[in-house]
């Protein structure tokens, strides 16, 4: 029951089924009622017709000519239509030629009244009549001194035809109701999928934002969803601004911490001051410097964020290389970049600057003539490979790095300067590997994988 679609569909189907059942039952009831009424009317008609054709004799008998039977079925054996006439003592005084078998037990109604009975296999209608016989005429409800005889006429009809009719009706009824229900459910499905499609689109867009294929929710949405889409966009923007504000605050903090530190460092290096005091300050100042540097850098690493705007790697690398070309102008290095123009990484821009900046700076520092940079995304992992033609890493460099590091005590300018890289890589669930560059350069190779 987790899906809206399932819920709606279930409720609608349930309501529909109950409705169809009630509807069917009602129609069935109505049909049966009118069928029975028709049956009664027909049997009553037959009774009157029989009475019309009957000749009552003075000895209490009744005679009906076969030719004047009101329904030919009455004259045929096993036709399903039978008639009986009883005298007032309940004795059968006439039976239709079609009648076979035992006389059923029937109730005698009052004179002038009818009784309709549903026997097991047939419908029976009985009618009470008082016959006055004087001059051979027929008189109903007669009074006076005339001799009066009470008769009961019964007409019975087999149920088969009625049941067949009912069965046919029911088949048609339920076929149509079922068909209608199926059609309605199908329509409901279409309506649901049309009605819910903006939600599915929204989900798809959000996934794209997450995976970095688009930077915000863009499509137009129905009125009910517009506030949601706008809210999401606001949230995405706020999230990104938040990071920017955070970084600005860190920058300010760095500025206000490091400027006095620089002054302190100046004091430590000031030859005109007593050496004893300077020596005692030197160590704490170094430590403060290291801690500030390390912690600020750690705090600045944004890490992988769900709603980060994807960053194009090529322009960023070009910028850094432009800057490094200036810084290492004296070495006249050749930088070769193998990064697709369209390559985008879903990582924080500042983090990528740090990562590439440190890697390339390090390579440029040690390279003699050339630095190669390569980047690619495979299975949601951004892989950066930076080669140089410098002396390469010492044997134990890898061990140094894997110890998790040590790298934080290695400041740029000393050692291998990969501390910042190691830290960022940790934040991105990635890895750093130090090896030897192939392809003619022969210097150091740093391979960094980040999950983005």
């Amino acid at each position, binding site marked *: 029951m987790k899906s809206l679609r399932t819920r709606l569909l279930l409720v609608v189907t349930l309501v529909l089924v109950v409705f169809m059942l009630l509807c069917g039952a009602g129609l069935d009831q109505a049909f049966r009622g009118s069928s029975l009424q028709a049956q009664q009317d027909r049997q009553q008609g037959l009774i009157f017709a029989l009475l019309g054709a009957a000749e009552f004799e003075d000895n209490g008998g009744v005679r009906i000519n076969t030719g004047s039977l009101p329904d030919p079925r009455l004259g045929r054996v096993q036709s399903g239509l039978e008639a009986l006439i009883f005298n007032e003592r309940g004795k059968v005084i006439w039976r239709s030629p079609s009648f076979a078998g035992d006389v059923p037990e029937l109730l005698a109604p009052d004179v002038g009244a009818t009784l309709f009975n549903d026997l097991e296999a047939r419908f029976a209608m009985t009618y009470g009549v008082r016959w006055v016989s004087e001059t051979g005429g027929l008189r109903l409800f007669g009074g006076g001194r005339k001799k009066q005889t009470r008769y009961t006429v019964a007409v019975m009809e087999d149920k088969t035809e009625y049941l067949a009719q009912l069965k046919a009706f029911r088949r048609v009824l339920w076929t149509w109701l079922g068909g209608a229900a199926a059609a309605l459910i199908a329509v409901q499905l279409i309506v649901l999928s049309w009605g819910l499609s903006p939600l599915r689109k929204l989900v798809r867009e959000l996934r794209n934002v997450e995976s970095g294929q688009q930077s915000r929710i863009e499509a137009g949405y129905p009125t009910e969803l517009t506030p949601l889409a706008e809210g999401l966009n606001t949230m995405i923007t706020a999230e990104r601004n938040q990071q920017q504000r955070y*970084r600005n605050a860190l*920058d*300010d903090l*760095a*500025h*206000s*911490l*490091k*400027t*006095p*530190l*620089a*002054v*302190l*460092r*100046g004091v430590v*290096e000031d030859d005109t001051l007593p050496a004893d005091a300077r020596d005692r300050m030197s160590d704490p100042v170094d430590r403060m*410097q290291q801690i500030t*540097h390390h912690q*600020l*850098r750690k705090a*600045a690493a944004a890490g992988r964020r769900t709603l980060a705007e994807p960053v194009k790697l090529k322009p960023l690398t070009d*910028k*850094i290389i*432009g*800057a490094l070309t*200036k*810084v290492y*102008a*004296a070495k006249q290095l050749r930088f070769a970049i193998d990064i697709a123009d369209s390559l985008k990484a879903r990582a924080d*821009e*500042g983090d990528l*600057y*740090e990562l*590439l*900046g*440190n890697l390339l*700076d390090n390579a440029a520092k040690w390279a003699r003539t050339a630095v190669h940079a390569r980047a690619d995304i495979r299975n949601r992992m951004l892989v950066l490979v930076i080669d140089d033609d410098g002396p390469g890493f010492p044997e134990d460099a890898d061990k140094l790095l894997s110890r998790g590091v040590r790298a934080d005590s290695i400041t*740029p*300018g000393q050692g291998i300067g990969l501390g910042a890289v190691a830290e960022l890589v940790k934040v991105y669930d990635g890895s750093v590997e130090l090896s030897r560059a192939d392809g003619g350069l022969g210097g150091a190779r740093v391979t960094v994988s980040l999950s983005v």
Partner: protein
Amino acid sequence: MRALVVEDDPALRDLVCRHLADEGYIVDMAADGEQGQYMAVEYPVDLAIIDLGLPKTPGIAIIKAVRKAGRNYPILILTARDGWQSKVEGLEAGADDYLVKPFHKEELLARARALVRRSGGWSTSQLESGPIILNTAAKTVSLHGNAVELTAYEYRLLEYLVMHAGEVVSKSTLTEHLYSEDEERDSNVIEVFIRRLRTKLDPDSTLNPITTQRGSGYRWTLPRA
């Protein structure tokens, strides 16, 4: 050499200025971006050291203004923001190198020396011109391998001329770049120093390293090695 320091923190500004002055630079200083930008564009500057986080006008804007004004002296960024993003931004704007606070005195001076050298077209810290070698780090001079004793003023003058080897440098340029505002500027002093340099570097008048271009100034004639 004339250096401009733009830094808002007074203690750090004084420190940087002292380091540079010790190194023989004539130092101008500005405490905020506005003043800094004015001085950076208008003053005779050989090297500028600019903090990025300045009040009034940000450091990046100063650098852009300097380059826009057609001044191409080297600029060293001083920054507490050690992020690569700000470094790249500064270098893109026209700076030549960066230095992250806090820094060692030696690092500051080494970067400054390298930048000035590079702007003069020299790639090593040893300036070799003919038989004369200047060690810009140690501030020593040798002629045919023998050390030459120079006063601080003489060395500054020589370094400036060698740095701009082949160019004609006017007397007023020399005064501007080698003397601070509050020092007495007597162009005769330059003539005196030039004469002394000639005597010390070319005792037997065979090299003739410095020629006088009448009416326009002096020129270092020896080729760069």
